[in-house]
């Protein structure tokens, strides 16, 4: 038991190239900033940030919302989250900025509950981990403790496994040859980008894709092994496929934001190739 515990403490204390975690931090901030900008570009800011009396969609904020009754608070939170997101992305005052981003983003979720989705919870969970990691500290470092990357891999394993298991109860089912679930999702007039009439006869193709997605999700246990990077190639293709077939907003981008840690050493090697153009923390650790 003592030997096992010693191995565990060595494992959780081991160092890794800090750049994959830096990339995750930057990509999360960009994903959130993209979503905040989308809110403005799609002209839904007043809907998301104001109560019904002022033409918005906000009704019964959560009991954890700190600014009930203050109509200025919604727009203020949007501005604060945006400003903190910019600081996190450019790497200025990263830890305090990420704390502010996390709190403001959570308050936006508390304000307008139906708009707060799974991807928002995933990104906030990862931000909480990063706040305690060496990658957001005030002293730039080429290497950091690897445990935040391990917990991100653990989180994603649970997310993908849950998504895979959740697909088993569906009717007619992801494997159905006629109108399988994947067809229904990508051809849904409210979200999908594909024409349901045109693709109706291609049910088996979608069944194949759906079964493939389940197999991939159930094999997510590989994320906590050294095969994580190979799994991540297929996972990234899944999310890129979603970008082109379903209008899910931030979801695929937010998930892909976490992939630099899944690609592991490949991320470092890719950055090494860009080394002549990189500065500061982005240059690799000395061999």
């Amino acid at each position, binding site marked *: 038991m003592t030997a096992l515990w010693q191995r565990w403490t060595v494992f959780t204390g081991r160092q890794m190239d800090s750049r994959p975690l830096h990339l995750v931090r930057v990509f999360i901030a960009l994903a959130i900033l993209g979503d905040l900008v989308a809110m403005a570009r799609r002209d839904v800011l007043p809907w998301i940030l104001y109560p019904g009396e002022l033409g918005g969609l906000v009704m019964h904020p*959560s009991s954890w919302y700190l600014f009930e009754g203050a109509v200025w608070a919604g727009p203020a939170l949007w501005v604060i989250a945006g400003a903190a997101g910019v600081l996190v992305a450019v790497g200025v005052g990263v830890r305090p900025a990420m704390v502010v981003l996390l709190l403001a983003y959570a308050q936006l979720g508390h304000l307008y509950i*139906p708009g*707060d989705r799974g991807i928002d919870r995933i990104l906030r969970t990862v931000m909480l981990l990063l706040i305690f990691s060496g990658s957001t500290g005030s002293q730039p470092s080429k290497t950091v403790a690897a445990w935040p990357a391990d917990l991100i891999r653990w989180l994603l394993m*649970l*997310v993908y496994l*849950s*998504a895979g298991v959740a697909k088993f109860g569906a009717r007619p089912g992801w494997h159905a040859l006629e109108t*399988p679930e994947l067809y*229904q999702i990508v*051809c849904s007039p409210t979200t999908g980008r594909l024409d349901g009439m045109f693709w109706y006869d291609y049910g088996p193709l979608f069944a194949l894709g759906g079964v493939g997605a389940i197999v991939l999700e159930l094999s997510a246990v590989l994320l906590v092994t050294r095969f994580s990077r190979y799994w991540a190639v297929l996972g990234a293709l899944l999310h890129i496929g979603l970008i082109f077939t379903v209008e899910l907003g931030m979801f695929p981008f937010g998930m892909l934001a976490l992939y630099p840690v899944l690609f592991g050493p490949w991320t470092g090697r890719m950055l090494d190739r860009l080394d002549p153009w990189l500065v500061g923390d982005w240059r690799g650790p000395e061999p």
Partner: protein
Amino acid sequence: MHQIRGVAVLVVGLIMLVLGAPGVDGLDADSLTSPQQRERLRGTWVGSLEVTIADLNRWFRLPVVARLSPLQRPLRIAQSWALYGVGPNQSRRMEIRVDGRLVFRSGDADATWLAPALRYRRVRPMVVNTCMDDSERTPLLLNAIRNRAVRDFGAEEVTVRCTASPWPGDVEREVLSYAASAPDWTWSQ
């Protein structure tokens, strides 16, 4: 320091596992408790496994979840991840007519007014719930649509209609319709 870090990482990982246990996080205390259900499921080994998992969840996991869940609420980080389990079993559309003219229809490239707003990920759940007659926020969405119609078209009358069709979506029938007109703009269903 190594010891503290080892304990902290282990505890956080276990909390994530218990709260977001794949396939179990959707089960509540009442899952598979009726004697008829249990008897029927015990006929197969898969059913027996389901009953056992539901019992273990009720006896061991849910009491822990009840204690840990409050920790997730301030930051909205609920660890429950049954994402994208099912597709919509029917092709559902929302249609908006302003003064009799079709200006928006879900998935219709020729009627895209408000499409950027209504397809936005934070608004779309309200569109879906409104068309399933399952949202107390429906009046807020209808009013928001009306305000935009007045702003963009100087509307005198707005009709919001929801249709459903078996796949592929070519046999549509109206399932809901709301209409309001100036000057009082009261919605009638």
